[in-house]
């Protein structure tokens, strides 16, 4: 808070422009009266001209303002029209064209905040006047500002090597700019690499993904860091310093040829919980899948006999290269890189189906998750693409597919996971194709938007798949009748006939929800962005800026931002890349000059503000005994301004003077529009200080 003595109110020549917006504003607010009033009653506040106009944002409207600035010598402009989020840039540009610093323009929203939400003409007109008085008082305190200019490092960091990250990396690298792609797992490919077919075209996932993975691996402008994680991010848009931990592979990638002999000779077999979703095995030295990029294996030290018991070394012994490529002494490495922009494409985790015990996953052998089923029907999977029961041999005769497992359920995730309906239709088709089994789909609502999706539903219907509208209540092996013995029974209300049904099946597939990564919150914090209540990364604007974030220079793509299918993921990867390329092309970036700064002579060095900034913009200069704010890191929230007990921090565009003046102006008129006070020179400092 501030107890700073304020300087006397600046003298200004202010122009007020009241927009009709056709009848949008004029239909409720008496705009002519408002303009007349402002010109007459606010003359003492510096208003030299007040006009109303049909469409202020039109070229003619803008020219009106420009002419007044030049001819009347205006030094401040107030536009009473729509929300500043719509047209602030328009009127700032008009001011700039007329030679007025664009930040000396203030917008007052009398459409979204008055005419569209109020109905009483008199009351609305009174409120519009008060809002304009607030704007007039405030604008007097505006200062001319220059945008903050930062240079852009042309290298981009992409975090996550799934299809979103792959797409983004390739787009940027193909445009001729360097990319560093960091992936946590030993290979890129992400979830898509685990899939068998993709809906609705039934393209083989590997066939369309592998070429892109190879392109990433061999691109001269892409530095691929797999089995690596970002540890720390410093800096700001244009020049981030990123610390990456490259985990020890225990394999020398310089000499390894990727022949795979070490894997063949390794005696330890481990259930592969990641790539095979727990349905298959791998060795202690492994490569997640044959087409992995890069091709080099890694040693899983938790299961490796040598690391656990000090003996074995079979992999090293059989390694055909000279020198041997297996290096047990390898250590984790820390790498520092400098980048200008960052794209986060960290993907999703699958809902843990054990959280819904009544669906039997983990207890009933033949209940599978969607990811397990992807591996089950994948030709390169543990069964070679055979759709079989957990015994590995029996083909199911009846299969139930349950939608919305962990989605659209306030007990777990209160959102639709978007892909499950189409995925379940795909499963139904694959089961039919591979086994000829009877297939039942259990759904709440069938959601098949987007190109060719509903056509796919039609096709699956025509294949004789059964559809039961009802959310499954339970999946059980507790048979009630001889007909149910030895089966898994799906109990559900068939809501279209209004009866409870028990349908015995051999296999159940749970279309599990997509969830934010378990460490999404931690990652968001590391990169200075935020997560929604559901845990997904928040975009700058849900419609108009879906891949940018509130932190300049950090972009998001793919499922990290919310559940989506492959086409949408790829589109976002490309979109994020386009945004980054645009930035790089600019070479320099102009940032909104809403920044806090420390008036060094007033700073007492109390450091109260030092821990308030989540962007690390505030630091303490031990040598000078004062606090400093890095304008490039500062995002302009103003929390430190509000906290400084000495009033030593000031914020451009949102200074105490500006806010105080606006409060005074807003309270100039009472509810009915009658003046309750004459405005006097500000003396806010007389108010009690907040303890």
């Amino acid at each position, binding site marked *: 808070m501030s107890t700073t003595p304020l300087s006397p109110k600046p003298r200004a020549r202010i122009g007020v422009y009241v927009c009709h917006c056709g009848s949008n504003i004029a239909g409720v607010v008496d705009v002519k009266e408002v303009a007349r009033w402002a010109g007459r009653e606010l003359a003492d506040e510096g208003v030299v001209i007040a006009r109303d106009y049909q469409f202020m944002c039109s070229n003619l409207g803008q020219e009106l303002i420009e002419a007044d600035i030049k001819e009347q010598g205006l030094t401040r402009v107030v536009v009473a029209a729509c929300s500043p989020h719509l047209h602030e840039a328009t009127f700032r540009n008009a001011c700039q064209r007329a030679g007025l610093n664009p930040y000396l323009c203030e917008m007052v929203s009398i459409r979204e905040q008055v005419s569209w939400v109020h109905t009483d003409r008199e009351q609305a007109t009174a409120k519009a006047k008060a809002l304009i008085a607030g704007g007039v008082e405030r604008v007097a305190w505006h200062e001319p500002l220059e945008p903050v200019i930062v240079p852009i490092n042309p290298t981009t960091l992409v975090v996550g090597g799934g299809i979103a990250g792959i797409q983004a990396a390739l787009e940027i690298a193909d445009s001729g700019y360097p990319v560093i792609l960091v992936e946590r797992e030993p290979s890129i490919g992400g979830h898509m690499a685990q899939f068998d077919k993709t809906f609705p075209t039934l393209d083989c996932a590997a066939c369309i993904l592998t070429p892109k993975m190879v392109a990433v691996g061999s691109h001269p402008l892409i530095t691929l860091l797999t089995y690596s994680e970002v540890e720390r991010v410093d800096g700001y848009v244009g020049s981030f310093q990123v610390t990456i931990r490259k985990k020890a592979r225990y394999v020398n990638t310089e000499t390894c040829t990727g022949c795979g002999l070490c894997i063949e000779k390794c005696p330890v077999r481990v259930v592969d919980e990641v790539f095979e979703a727990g349905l298959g095995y791998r060795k202690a030295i492994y490569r997640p899948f044959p087409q992995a990029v890069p091709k080099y294996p890694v040693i899983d030290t938790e299961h490796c006999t040598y690391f656990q018991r000090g003996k074995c070394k079979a992999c090293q012994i059989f390694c055909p290269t000279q020198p041997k490529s297996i290096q047990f002494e390898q250590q984790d490495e820390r790498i520092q890189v400098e980048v200008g922009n960052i794209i986060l494409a960290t993907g999703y985790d699958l809902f843990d189906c054990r959280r819904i015990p*009544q669906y039997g996953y983990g207890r009933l052998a033949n209940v599978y998750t969607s990811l397990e089923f992807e591996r089950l029907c994948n030709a390169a999977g543990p069964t070679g693409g055979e759709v079989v029961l957990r015994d590995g041999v029996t083909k199911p005769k009846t299969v139930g597919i349950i939608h*919305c497992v962990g989605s*659209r*359920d*306030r*007990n777990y995730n209160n959102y639709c996971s978007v892909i499950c309906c189409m995925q379940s239709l795909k499963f139904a088709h694959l089961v039919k194709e591979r086994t000829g089994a009877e297939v039942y789909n259990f759904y*709440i609502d069938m959601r098949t938007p987007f190109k060719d999706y509903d056509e796919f539903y039609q096709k699956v219907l025509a294949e004789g798949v059964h559809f039961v*509208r*009802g*959310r*499954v*209540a*339970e999946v059980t092996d507790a048979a009630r009748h001889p007909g149910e013995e030895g089966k898994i029974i799906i*109990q*559900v*209300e*068939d*809501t279209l006939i*209004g*009866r*409870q049904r028990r349908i015995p099946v051999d296999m159940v597939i749970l279309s599990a929800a997509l969830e934010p990564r378990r460490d999404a919150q931690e990652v968001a914090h590391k990169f200075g962005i935020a997560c929604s209540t559901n845990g997904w990364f928040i975009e700058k604007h849900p419609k108009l800026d879906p891949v940018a974030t509130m932190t300049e220079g950090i972009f998001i793509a793919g499922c990290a931002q919310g559940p989506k299918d492959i086409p949408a993921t790829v589109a976002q990867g490309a979109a994020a890349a386009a945004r980054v390329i645009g930035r790089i092309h600019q070479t320099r970036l102009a940032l909104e000059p809403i920044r806090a700064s420390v008036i060094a002579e007033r700073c007492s060095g109390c450091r109260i503000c030092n821990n308030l900034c989540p962007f690390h913009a505030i630091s303490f200069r031990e040598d000078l005994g004062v606090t400093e704010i890095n304008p490039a890191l500062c995002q302009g929230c103003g929390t430190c301004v509000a906290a400084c007990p000495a009033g030593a921090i000031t914020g451009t565009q949102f200074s105490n003077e500006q806010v105080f003046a606006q409060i005074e102006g807003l309270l100039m008129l009472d509810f009915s529009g009658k003046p309750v006070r004459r405005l006097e020179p500000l003396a806010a400092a007389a108010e009690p200080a907040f303890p």
Partner: protein
Amino acid sequence: MAVSHAARAAPTDFLAEVLAATPGGDPRLDRCIQCGTCGGSCPSAADMDHTPRQLFALIFAGMRDEVLRSNTFWYCVSCYFCTVRCPQEVHITDIMYALKRLAIREGLYRESGAAEAPAFAETYIDYVENYGRSFELGLATRHHLRHHPLGAIKKVAFGMELWRKGRIDLTPKRIKNMAQLSAILNKAKELEAADGRGGGA
């Protein structure tokens, strides 16, 4: 007693009435997405003329008489499976209790084919209101003598067996401060009647 306005109930009116009759915080019935988890989970769904989900759809449609004549809530065993499984966290079991009360108030339960349930509850309540405790032998015999004179013989045999095993008293016990309990219950009934919210407390 509120006047029945069954036939004229606008769809939202009846929903509002049911919501108001369900105490214990927001019952969330208006959030139902008709997924059928309740009807799928219900152990006695087979005996119900409407599944709970259908009953909710009827409530949304304002079909007051049809709802209150239904036997659905009389077959509710209070197992709370629907309540804990409901993806919208609707207080389904509590709503079933509220519908029982509304049906009794309107006298519509007699047409539900489940007329015994309120009668059993009444017999039970008689003991509680007169003695402060329930009385199993009296409960079973009195209820069955009144409603199934033939079946009662079987019940008496069952009661005798319970008695032989020391699991039943022959006379009901009365709590000491019955006057206090009666005063409380009478006051509560008075408040409920004055409230006119269909027992929504």
